[in-house]
């Protein structure tokens, strides 16, 4: 079965610090996309960053970057210079190319403390 695991249910860091959220997944596919979504208190799902599995270069979007380790099936999200507005639930997700489902991890609730 194809799964996504987020092992950190909740994390807290001080503003301006760097934080890393972990995600591992399981698939037998070779080409696929991985995602991190942010869900703030408004509950709107916002795409933070996307990684194509066939690209070795780690994706970056401003303060957000990933550490993609394909062999280890690991896809962690690093938030640099964290801001109060980063407080949210973060979901790691994966869309298997030959499946029709979006598979989510259970989420990590991140608190940025002033």
């Amino acid at each position, binding site marked *: 079965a194809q799964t996504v695991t987020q092992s950190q249910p909740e994390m807290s860091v001080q503003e301006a610090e760097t934080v890393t959220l972990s995600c591992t997944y399981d698939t037998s596919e070779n080409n696929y996309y991985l995602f991190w979504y942010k869900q703030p208190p408004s509950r709107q*799902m916002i*795409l933070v960053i996307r990684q194509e599995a066939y690209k070795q270069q780690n994706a970056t979007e401003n303060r957000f970057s990933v550490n993609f380790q394909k062999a280890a099936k690991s896809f962690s999200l690093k938030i640099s210079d964290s801001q109060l507005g980063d407080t949210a639930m973060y979901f790691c997700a994966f*869309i298997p190319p030959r499946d*029709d*489902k979006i598979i*989510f991890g259970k989420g990590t609730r991140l608190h940025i403390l002033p």
Partner: protein
Amino acid sequence: SQTIHQWPATLVQPVGSPLSLECTVEGTSNPNLYWYRQAAGRGLQLLFYSVGIGQISSEVPQNLSASRPQDRQFILSSKKLLLSDSGFYLCAWSKGATEAFFGQGTRLTVV
């Protein structure tokens, strides 16, 4: 550009009443469509997904049903709501396994 509309944003319904939540997508054709439910502070539970008109796959047997009467329309329904149906419902679409887009969600409270 692609957009997804989901309504209503908030709904309070009595136990035993019917439910209809609607989701429409613009700017694409033949998308995969999804309904998720999220309990407070919890993860996303996939309820239904559809790969085409009239094609519905159910992930969790429950008091809800889904329909796709048109290519870009996805409806979540119930004939008689239960208290346990309360939650936050999200509609989403994807195409080509490259990205997923989400509606703004419906907060349903069954009283």
